[in-house]
């Protein structure tokens, strides 16, 4: 066991898999000699060689396209896209090739590629360093989608993703790389040291790719969320003084419907929260699924607290971000309804 922040946990997952499995390779912009702009691969090229941790040209489509070729040749590429906002030039290779190869070839070919990418705001990145595009990947059949919320899960889920024979798009909320964030930007930043999920085993372990986690058990309402907002929701629930059951979805696709169903059927009230824009966001699917599964138990409309349907503005970052206050408002609304 060690204290790790999310960057160290992700690096550890790379390190262990590069060590255990000679077919694992990493590629991406600035990830080699430099170790990545967020340091997630620091020291790994030096340790495993330039042919295992490759600096790649600035072409997301080329990175994902060649990663597929590497995978078809028996390797297990872990591709880093420097910011989720820059994944779109590679979108065609994800949708038309990576996620369709196994299906269209009747199972003869498949490409176990992991695409890691930092997402989300809260670091004054403006509209091109803050996006959360998970909702456009979860709609694509054939690719699994993950968003992590803490170091322990980050390492365990990344190892699962690398070992999975399915392609995985792996989102890492950059706001919580160095510490959890409770959604109050006026508070000083805290580190992972104090957080139980900052305790990470040094060795190999996995977290399953299809299970949500109940991070807090409760009776009054269910808050379904993932990524940075998990921590915001916990703080908001405390502040609102409600006994909330808080679920970290973790693996967005495939979705662990059972955990959601059991919780909302029990509490009868549900709030869905994420950082991404609201319209047609991932939260829409969560609401649609829950209302179908738990309709007869619902005592109030399911409510969503999300980023607004605008790009992510630089100056108004904290008005765009679903801060604690907005979660509190959302919780109140769900509790007071009916």
């Amino acid at each position, binding site marked *: 066991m060690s204290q790790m922040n999310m960057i160290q946990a992700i690096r550890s997952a790379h390190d262990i898999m590069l060590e255990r499995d000679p077919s694992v*390779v990493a590629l991406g912009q600035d990830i080699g000699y430099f170790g990545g702009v967020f340091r997630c691969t620091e020291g790994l090229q030096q340790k495993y060689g330039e042919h295992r941790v490759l600096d790649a040209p600035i*072409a997301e*489509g080329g990175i994902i396209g060649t990663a597929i*070729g590497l995978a078809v*040749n028996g390797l297990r590429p872990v591709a880093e896209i420097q910011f989720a906002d820059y994944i779109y030039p590679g979108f065609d290779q994800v949708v038309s*090739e990576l996620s369709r190869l*196994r299906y269209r*070839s009747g199972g003869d*070919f498949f490409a176990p590629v992991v695409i890691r990418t930092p997402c989300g705001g809260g670091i004054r990145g403006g509209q091109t360093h803050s996006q959360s595009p998970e909702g456009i990947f979860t709609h694509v059949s*054939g690719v699994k989608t993950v968003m992590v919320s803490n170091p322990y899960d980050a390492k365990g889920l990344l190892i699962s993703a690398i070992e999975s024979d399915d392609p995985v798009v792996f989102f890492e909320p950059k706001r919580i790389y160095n510490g959890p964030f409770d959604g109050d930007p006026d508070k000083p930043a805290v580190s992972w040291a104090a957080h139980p999920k900052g305790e990470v085993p040094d060795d190999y372990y996995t977290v399953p790719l299809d299970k949500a986690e109940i991070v807090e058990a409760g009776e009054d309402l269910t808050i379904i969320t993932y990524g940075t907002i998990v921590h915001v929701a916990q703080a908001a629930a405390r502040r609102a003084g409600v006994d909330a059951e808080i679920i970290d979805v973790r693996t967005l696709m495939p979705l662990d419907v059972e955990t959601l169903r059991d919780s909302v059927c029990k509490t009868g009230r549900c709030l869905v929260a994420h950082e991404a824009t609201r319209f047609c966001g991932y939260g829409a699917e969560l609401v649609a699924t829950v209302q179908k599964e738990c309709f007869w138990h619902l005592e109030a409309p399911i409510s969503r607290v999300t980023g607004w349907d605008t790009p992510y503005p630089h100056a108004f970052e904290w008005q765009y971000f679903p801060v604690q206050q907005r979660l509190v408002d959302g919780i109140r609304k769900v509790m007071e309804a009916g």
Partner: protein
Amino acid sequence: MTKKPRIHIPQPTARPGEAPDFSYLELSPAGAVDRPDTDSRAADIGFLAHELVRVLDDEHAAVGPWAPEIEPEKQVEALELMVLTRAFDDRMLRMQRQGKITFYMQALGEEAVSIGQGMAFEPGDMMFPAYRNQGLYIMRDTGLVDMMCQCLSNTRDMCKGRQMPIFYQNREHNIFSISGNLATQYPHAVGWAMGAQIKGEDHIAASWIGDGSTAEADFHHALTFAAVYNAPVVLNVVNNQWAISTFQGVAGGERQTFAARGLGYGIPGIRVDGNDLLAVYAVTRWAAERARAGNGPTLIELVTYRGGAHSTSDDPSRYRPRDEWQAFPLGDPVERLKMHLIRNGEWSEDRHEALAQESKATVDAAWKEATSYGTLTEPPFLDVELMFEDVFAEMPEHLELQRRKLMRSLGSRS
């Protein structure tokens, strides 16, 4: 607007009703182009991207430095494979017209590309074809029945009914799955080749796209990554002059050859007579040797002509002269190799006639067998539940539920 527009819009030399005109094609005489060593630097062999490597001269003799050492038996085999490919296409085209399959694309007039290039690689080399490379499957003998079953989406369909006709793959014979999305296979080939380097293996990769598809991003991605990592890959552009209704000028072929694109990346480009099987084989062999020896990628432009419609959904008489193919200066690859072999006393009109019959018979027999495994309209049918498999390695719960729901709905009547 008041002012006069002056945007340049590329124009083909002839439209329907006009006389075909290939004067725009730069042709070199057979044997005229030098054959540099396979370890030459791209910068020193730029001429290869502008001239046209040809081996067969007008008297059907194989001449010049590119004339390959290839035994007569192998040449005859190549002829047989081209004729078989054409017979296969002919049959499948008619089957589509009769509604037995939903769609088809011929390689008519381009057979030397897949056959000649296919023969230049080793069985362990990985092929990343485009949709007009059926010849690669035929050359590697993956089985006509197998291909027909795919086109029929029947119980033996390698794609389990998921793809339109012609989107084959064959893992065992190292031929990748054909994509409906243009050019995407190009970076796959480069990545696969990088993988061979990383693993320290000797296999190389090859991929094909059309002239029109070179405009896609993946063409640039592939050339960039191949250049940066010196990947052992042979990248081929099949310039058949047309991309559906747009001629090669709309892809940028007007002011520069496609082979020359490679030079901009420091990758050798070679322009070759795509209807001259011996030249195609020789040039590809050169590029394959180069890659295997660690000298990196090569871009080959194969100059040929799309003899048929783009696909069964297309009617070329709307946009090009009906007799354009007949006027194509590089002729017909089958005819040219045939005449070469006859000239050398290795072949005769009679044997050719016999070959045509045999090939037809082979295809007929294959079709008979293939259809015995069902068609889209006649049993046996593929199991509908296959629709939900292979989306992932294991079927997740939501797909299992959807599968059951469908089966219930197919059961219910009202």
